[in-house]
């Protein structure tokens, strides 16, 4: 059987059936299965971690190479009950974390501390930060949901949504993920805004963290670390500019793009009318807060 016939034969197979053929060492099945997930391997890191576009093709090469080297597809075990797509998603996610860790001098998880590089916008930043900190938990969550910033929900906020909607935390997490997916599939503008904000925020803070970690050890830094710092400074400045531009762009927008009440009411398990009242009350409270902050 030639390559084309093989491909035609396997195109009808389910992912799970192809994974079983991978176990038997049939390379054409592996090729077909990998081909089906190329887009997912490429785009998933951006969707889940806000990965930089310039890193995506490097990761694609890394991931495919590792999957093939380690015969990963043959390790899928259907008896454990997970669908192949869910299982491979976890594989891609873990590979991305490995990939990030393998990048020189770029530790993945460093606790956030204030930026060591003060910028002109820091004053404006601190006013914004106080506003959010002083806001009640309920209002904070409502604003984050309304502004499609579910990416930035923290654990307390997720628990609050679970409590309010009388759902388990696990069910709530699923509902949040579905809301994101619906927003992503929705209006183009909303999608673009959602992706852009997530990405800009992620990279700005990540570079700040990395740079700060390197700075702590400046006295003993090797030549290579100094070079890494220089590179990180350059990247941070670029992201900072991009971030400021997005904020300016948003300020310049006549209308603000917000998530549909229908979707949010469903997540919070309340009526649209109640949600509308809650939103207006939160806006009024936030306006008072801002006024008092400015007076100070």
């Amino acid at each position, binding site marked *: 059987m030639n390559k084309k016939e093989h491909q035609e034969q396997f195109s009808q197979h389910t992912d799970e059936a192809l994974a079983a053929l991978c176990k038997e060492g049939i390379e054409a099945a592996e090729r077909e299965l990998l081909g089906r997930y190329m887009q997912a391997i490429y785009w998933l890191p951006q969707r889940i971690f806000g990965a930089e576009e310039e890193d995506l093709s490097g990761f*694609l*090469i890394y991931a495919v190479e590792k999957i093939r080297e380690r015969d990963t597809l043959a390790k899928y075990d259907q008896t454990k009950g997970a*669908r192949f*797509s869910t299982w491979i998603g976890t594989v891609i*996610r873990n590979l991305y974390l490995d990939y990030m860790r393998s990048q020189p001098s770029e530790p993945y998880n460093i606790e956030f501390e204030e930026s060591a590089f003060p910028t002109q916008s820091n004053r404006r930043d601190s006013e914004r930060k106080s506003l*959010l900190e002083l806001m009640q938990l309920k209002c904070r969550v409502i604003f984050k949901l309304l502004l499609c*910033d579910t990416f930035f929900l923290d654990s307390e906020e*997720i628990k609050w949504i679970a409590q309010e909607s009388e759902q388990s935390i696990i069910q709530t997490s699923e509902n949040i993920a579905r809301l994101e997916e619906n927003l992503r599939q929705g209006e183009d503008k909303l999608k673009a805004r959602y992706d852009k904000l997530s990405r800009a925020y992620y990279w700005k803070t990540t570079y700040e963290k990395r740079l700060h970690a390197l700075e702590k050890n400046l006295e003993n830094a090797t030549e290579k670390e100094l070079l890494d710092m220089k590179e990180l400074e350059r990247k941070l400045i670029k992201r900072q500019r991009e971030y400021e531009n997005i904020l300016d762009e*948003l300020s310049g927008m006549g209308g603000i793009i917000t998530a549909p009440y229908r979707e949010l009411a469903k997540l919070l398990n309340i009526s649209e009318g109640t949600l509308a009242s809650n939103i207006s009350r939160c806006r009024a409270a936030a306006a008072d807060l801002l006024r008092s902050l400015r007076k100070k």
Partner: protein
Amino acid sequence: MNPPKLTIEELSRFIDNELSKSELEEISRKLTECPTSEQLLNRLRELTQQVSSSILNAAPVESNANTEECLSEDDIIRLVEHQASPAELYQAEQHIANCRHCLLLVLQNIRTAVSMNSNNWNELPEEIRADSRISVVSRIKRPQHCCEHTSEQIGEIRFNLNSNKPQIFQEFSKGIHTAQLIIKRISAEIASLEITFLQENRPKTQIEMTLTITPGDKQVFRGLTGQNGKTLIRRVQPNNYLLRFKELDAIISVIISDGSE
């Protein structure tokens, strides 16, 4: 100043585009008649933008905490796939209510699963589809200790992005192999690097190459030559690089500058 004719709730729904057509007409009319309402509307808009920025500025603290009681990957997959028993579900729920690390991990896994199962992906960028990098599907077998062998430097190519030349071309040979390099200016800060690999003047596919920054050896590209023996590396920034060809056991020094030094 007169009190506003419109309530905050009406204005709030106006901002969020949640009004029916008739409501929208009514409120738009009132807005033109009532400057106080219009002022209030602008303040609410500004406030919403301000809050949006605050959210972006509030960095979530990532946690590395991982204890023996934490959920395993298999546990999480079972939760995500609704395979957990009620008892397991209860236990997991109790744990994530108190463990920030696992809660965020569960959410991240659910996000991944929802994305994977919705299968709603953009197309791959054209250069990935058409370019040689698609040949990643081919198996790459690397010798062990590949980083330890020393390769021979067979030449150097320099390009200043601020020079008058929009691109340069240079050819390097070792035995029957030839590497042709074209550096093109994309902007004052970015170049592209096109490499063609030939064996006895015929295109050679599936040749592994890496581009690393020197010193430091930070890898910025790894790929295989595709059809026509070509590889295109986009978005190369000013720096000193080493281009390594495994097959040729050779290194070419590539120096791209922006003229600032």
